[in-house]
């Protein structure tokens, strides 16, 4: 009897292990698929001509995605500039100042914000933000500014929840010690808690960047998707993700491979961001 029980336990363990490994498997398959589709073009045209080329006309043999790399980083930075201070303020309030009741309202509403489909953000962007910009600031409205605003809102939940966790993991003794020395609440938060959670907060910014750089649907709707490197905040732009989504439907041959190459570049960028974020979080744990 005991033996049968033990066997059953083992079997369950094995099955669960398989499930656990499946995520690894999917990651591996996606990786192989994108690389096998995208790398041949790098070999044919040259890494430099793709990543540094400024002309994208894939049906005529030009595969430069440099403007899209630049544009992706521009809107990501824009989203961070607009979203990060707001998100950090929110998480600081939540962890240091908010009472139980406020927390009970604020936390779930943030989670709700994270659950809204991106096409809805894009739709609101097209219907409200784009016309407002066109009316009051000029240009077509489809612009870096509109895209950054939409993305800035979209990354709020990511940054807030991760930096909230970082702030909460600062030991209570730090705060008590600071208050006992006669520091005010704000002095404690500003000089003790925030610096102690610094690496976690930085990691939250980087994960927010990852979210912004990978966003597709909302960006296609508000960015205007022009190929030029934007020179003003009101210029339209095209990011790496929107390039893939815009053109995949009609692409064949090298054009299609070029879109997978775009995917490879995107994959490398997002992986680097995640590695950096993990590194920061790990260092904090080690300390």
């Amino acid at each position, binding site marked *: 009897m005991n033996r049968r029980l033990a066997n059953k336990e083992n079997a369950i363990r094995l099955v669960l292990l398989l499930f656990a490994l499946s995520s690894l498997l999917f990651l591996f398959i996606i990786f192989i698929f994108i690389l096998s589709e995208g790398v041949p073009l790098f070999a044919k045209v040259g890494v430099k001509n793709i990543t540094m080329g400024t002309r994208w006309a894939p049906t005529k043999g030009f595969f430069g995605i440099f403007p899209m790399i630049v544009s992706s980083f521009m809107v990501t930075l824009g989203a961070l500039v607009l979203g990060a201070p707001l998100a950090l303020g929110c998480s600081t309030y939540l962890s240091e100042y908010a009472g139980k009741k406020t927390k009970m309202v604020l936390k779930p509403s943030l989670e709700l914000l994270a659950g809204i489909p991106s096409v809805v953000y894009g739709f609101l962007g097209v219907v409200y933000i784009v016309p407002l910009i066109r009316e009051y600031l000029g240009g077509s409205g489809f612009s870096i500014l509109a895209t950054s605003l939409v993305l800035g809102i979209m990354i709020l939940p990511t940054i807030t929840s991760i930096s909230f966790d970082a702030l909460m993991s600062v030991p209570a003794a730090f705060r008590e010690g600071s208050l006992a020395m006669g520091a005010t609440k704000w002095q404690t938060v500003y000089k003790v808690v925030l610096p102690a959670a610094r690496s976690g907060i930085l990691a939250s910014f980087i994960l927010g960047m990852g979210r912004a750089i990978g966003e597709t649907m909302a960006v296609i709707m508000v960015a205007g998707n022009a190929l030029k490197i934007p020179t003003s905040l009101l210029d339209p732009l095209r990011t790496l993700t929107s390039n893939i989504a815009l053109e995949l*439907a009609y692409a064949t041959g090298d054009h299609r491979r070029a879109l997978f190459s775009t995917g490879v570049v995107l994959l490398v960028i997002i992986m680097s961001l995640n590695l950096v974020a993990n590194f920061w979080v790990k260092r904090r744990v080690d300390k």
Partner: protein
Amino acid sequence: MRITITGLLLLSVTPFLLGCGNYTRNGSESRKSTVTIAGSTSVMPFSEKLAEHFKIEDPGITVDVQGGGSSAGIQACLNRTVDIGMSSRELKGDEKRLDELIICHDGIAIVVHPQNPIKDITLEQIRAIYGGRLRNWKQLGWIDRNIDAVTREEGSGTRGAFEELVMAGTDIHDSTMVQDSNGSVKEVVATDPYAIGFISLGVVDAKVKALQVEGVAPNVENIKTQRYRMVRPFLYLTMGEPEGAARLFITYVLSKDGQMILKKEGLVPINE
């Protein structure tokens, strides 16, 4: 390392292009009950309309219409993945192995916001706008405001036809905005008073204003008499002579009833 390479080879042969199993059964069935059609998103809405009406005529046959784009439709037809391919551009090179059939003609309309007072534009002006040389509405006699030009994405049949008919070998400028369907181009033009775009004449409605080109209004009459020149054919493609249900459907499309439906949708029927 060896494992990685084997895996890579295995996966690279996995056909991901058109997905889910519409494999044509080759050969002897005289009458299939399903006809699959795929290709140009410009032709798709009209094929769907035709399929709906055909269903009433011949309830035994289901016509399954999918998009994917002209190039994908041509590929699928070459692979015999679909019975009929749809294309809104001419066939090139190896693709000419397919039998092509013009089901109707479609005009490409230059559209602006209804509030835009301009009524007429020349081909040279359109070329200058999309070439990035003409950037302000003032140069066309309206207010001092930048022109927000909108084009279709690279690879689109409508864009291909526009490049051929209007741009005449010159490039569309980098700063032109890009949208990925007739619908979204129309949406941008309908909301932005300073925008200009080109869409299939069949999808023009009251939300946008179609401009006269060189003094000629884009309508069925002017296309038939060949006064309006921005016209392209809508093609049905088959690998060899169509058989069975596919043949019946094509016969219906070319019939008086089928052509009437296309005419009602704003397209230009053949044989008129």
